[in-house]
């Protein structure tokens, strides 16, 4: 295997890690946002819930920014095309993501109940919608997307955005992702909250995990029946040009090929389903700290399962399958991938080190702050 191919695979792997980190950490905060109105009945309870993720949400959100940045730097053509093709949902996702930081910072800085109520709704929308879109995007990509390129690499859209929005499989994937975020968010609230927030969060977390597991199993069966894509010819070391150079066919059940060839890959869906059920059981037994780790495993299993099934495809095209975007043809140059790898190897350990220090520093149970205290959320 030549160096370029290896770099492409490494970066696809890193992208997977970022997507898992995003689902886990951003999803956890989103889950808290979605649950806010349900676990907190009084203003004090809601503030307590917000302050549990208060010191960390900003750092967690960077997973999302890094995910975007890594796609831009390592897979620019994928970034350009996928963000544009999914314009309407991407813009809705973006609106949610920019609403959230402002909601955090502003909600408790004024005391009027209408002010705080409005921001609480903002939390609900900006927690639910991004996670739904995140999951639905996976669903759409698994089904294939209608687009093609011209000779310069400009994309053209071949299907209406309604087909991505009103799409039963994508909706299922979206709901599954929301359910996982509710599980993770609920567990977080249990870890740092006291009654009555604790009891309400426990119920939500339990249902979140069970629903996620059920939807994951249904989705898995559904994928077998989908018309998948097969890369017939296309050199992994090819220059990154999605316009020409590969041949792709469509075939029902093609997304299961990788599993048939490498049965070891079944470990991903297995980890996913088992962790969700174990997570639900641990929540029932009041062990949120252990359950959190099973939430992490659920994300690893879920994203791993999708990746294992689609490899090496990123975003297959239904209208011109030969121009499907794969790991091989939508990435950066070898030089860029090397540069970015060096930068990542230096900074990721540093980031992990200070992020865990911050969690350690700010750990412990959180009580409701005084109503006019404007230093807390």
């Amino acid at each position, binding site marked *: 295997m030549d160096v370029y191919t290896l770099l492409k695979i490494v970066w696809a792997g890193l992208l997977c890690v970022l997507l898992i980190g995003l689902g886990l950490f951003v999803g956890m905060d989103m889950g808290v946002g979605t649950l806010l109105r349900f676990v907190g009945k009084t203003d004090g309870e809601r503030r307590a819930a917000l302050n549990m993720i208060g010191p960390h949400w900003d750092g967690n959100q960077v997973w999302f920014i890094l995910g975007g940045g890594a796609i831009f730097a390592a897979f620019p053509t994928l970034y350009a095309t996928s963000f544009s093709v999914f314009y309407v949902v991407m813009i809705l996702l973006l609106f949610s993501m920019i609403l959230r930081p402002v909601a955090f910072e502003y909600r408790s800085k004024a*005391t009027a109940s209408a002010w705080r109520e409005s921001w609480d709704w903002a939390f609900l929308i900006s927690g639910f919608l991004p996670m739904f879109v995140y999951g639905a995007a996976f669903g759409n990509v698994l089904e294939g997307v209608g687009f093609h390129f011209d000779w310069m690499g400009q994309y053209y859209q071949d299907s209406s955005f309604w087909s991505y929005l009103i799409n039963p499989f994508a909706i299922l994937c979206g709901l599954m992702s929301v359910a996982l975020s509710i599980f993770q968010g609920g567990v977080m609230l249990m870890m740092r909250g006291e009654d009555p927030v604790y009891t309400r969060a426990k119920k939500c977390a339990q249902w979140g995990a069970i629903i996620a597991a059920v939807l994951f199993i249904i989705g898995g069966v559904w994928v077998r029946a989908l018309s998948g894509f097969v890369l017939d010819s296309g050199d992994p070391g090819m*220059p990154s040009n999605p316009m020409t150079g590969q041949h792709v066919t469509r075939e029902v059940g093609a997304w299961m090929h990788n599993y048939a060839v490498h049965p070891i890959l079944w470990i991903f869906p297995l980890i996913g389903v088992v962790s969700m059920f174990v997570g639900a059981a641990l929540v029932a037994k009041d062990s949120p700290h252990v359950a959190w780790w099973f939430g992490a495993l659920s994300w690893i299993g879920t994203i791993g399962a999708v990746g294992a099934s689609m490899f090496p495809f990123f975003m297959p095209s239904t209208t011109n399958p030969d121009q499907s975007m794969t790991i091989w043809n939508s990435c950066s*140059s070898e030089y860029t991938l090397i540069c970015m790898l060096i930068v990542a190897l230096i900074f990721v350990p540093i980031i992990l080190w200070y992020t865990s220090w911050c969690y350690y520093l700010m750990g412990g149970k959180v009580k409701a702050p005084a109503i006019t205290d404007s230093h807390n959320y």
Partner: protein
Amino acid sequence: MEQLINSTVVDLSRFQFALTALYHFMFVPLTLGLTFFLAAVETAYVVTGKQIYKEMTLFWGKLFGINFAIGVATGLTMEFEFGTNWSMYSHFFGDMFGTPLAIEGLMAFFMESTFVGIMFFGWDRLSKHAHLAVTYLVALGSNLSALWILVANGAMNVPEGGHFDPVTVRLVFDDIVALIFNPDAQAKFVHTTTAGFVTGAMFVMGISAFYLLRREHRHFAACSFRMAAVFGICSVLAVITLGDVLGRLDYEKQPTKLAAMEGIWHTTNSASAPWLIAALPNDATQENSFEIGIPYILDPIVAHSFTTPIIGMHELETAAGPRIESGIAAVTALRHYEQTHQQADLDQFKAHEKDLGYGFLAIPHAPNQDVTAIAPDQMANVVQQTEPDILPNVFVTFWAFRIMVFLGLWFFFLFAIGAYVALKNKLDQNKWLLTLTMWSIPLPFVAAEFGWITAEAGRQPWTVFGYLPTFISSSTHTVGYMVFSLIGFALLYTTFIAAELYLMFKFARLGPQPHDHNGTTDAAHASVAAAH
């Protein structure tokens, strides 16, 4: 190209990007400036142990937090929009452009975002020194963030560190050192961050002036005013110096931008050429319909000499003619090469490669918008029609630049007098100065916005200067998509600014509270009630 992107979509995409970028940049300069101001004040607290400095840190920190939230939130929009609205740009330039953006995330943004939480929440859990270190990390993070963003922006304006690759039909990255040490990026970094310091200084000075005028929190306000004025005068000197460096760089690397900034239509050939104080550049007739200037200072200001002619826009247009023709040959050869993969086509392309962008520029003027099908007898006509397209909108560039410069000089004047009066302890006797300072709070924001307009409107018609014209850079959306997103941005951003201003005014009016930290609810509550 299958077809040229609908020009309404391109215009709306530009409008949306400009709107969201300028909006984002209303919050960035204050973040850049206040972080270092906070670090300085907190250092004073740690060194002297005086409670007033802690009060200052907490109070200005609260206003910083209100501002920081929207800055972070609207920054996300910028990262998204390259993908959602500028697909061809991101595909064509992403190999080079994505790298500094991703490094920004890894090196800077993660750091400032993680530590800003600790800065607000960690007072009780950290020692004084550890908290100070955290504050410095936030300041360092936000300024490093600016560095990498400006490295990315520098690459758009002066693309260095990459080359065009005909196999993948895009610019590929080949030299990270050239990318980082791009002189345009480095000068812009210092110019922009120090402009942020000016904004922060004016903000602190202005609000302090407000308290002094109302005779409230006098010790606190005088102390803040003094520190801000000294911080401000140092910063504004750096802004002006680096602004001068940038002007000279534009003269070398982006002569169209420089000529538009200065409103120079015809090459100057005598030392007496005037620097225009005011003019009415007319983009249609390509002349200034009115101008007043100061003779003899143009050449020294722009080129630091008395003998160098400044090339005018008419001459730049004429000089572009041969490049446009060569560029058309480059696009034609590249198009053939993509179909045939013949070495002959590649060689033909290589001969004209450096003018590729000028060939793209001719697309709207070619028959059927196909530059590969221009008949020899049409060529002169197409080239002639394309020539004026190399210029930015002169009126906008000229006036954006002037507003920025005049405001910069005003800040210099105000900080100098402010520092002098504050250090002489005569603030109370100079009400006029306090009033002027208070009303000057919004001006650095205005100057920063016009700075961006100068830099980016002056970059037109390119997104990647000399390589990729703006009109082929955008995504192939429908007008409906753009209307949808623009309405959304308008609603959301208007809500944000209303909420932000409400909170800023509320907390600024309220002023610093004794032991302004974690609770002391009764006192805080009483003053909230009093304020209403």
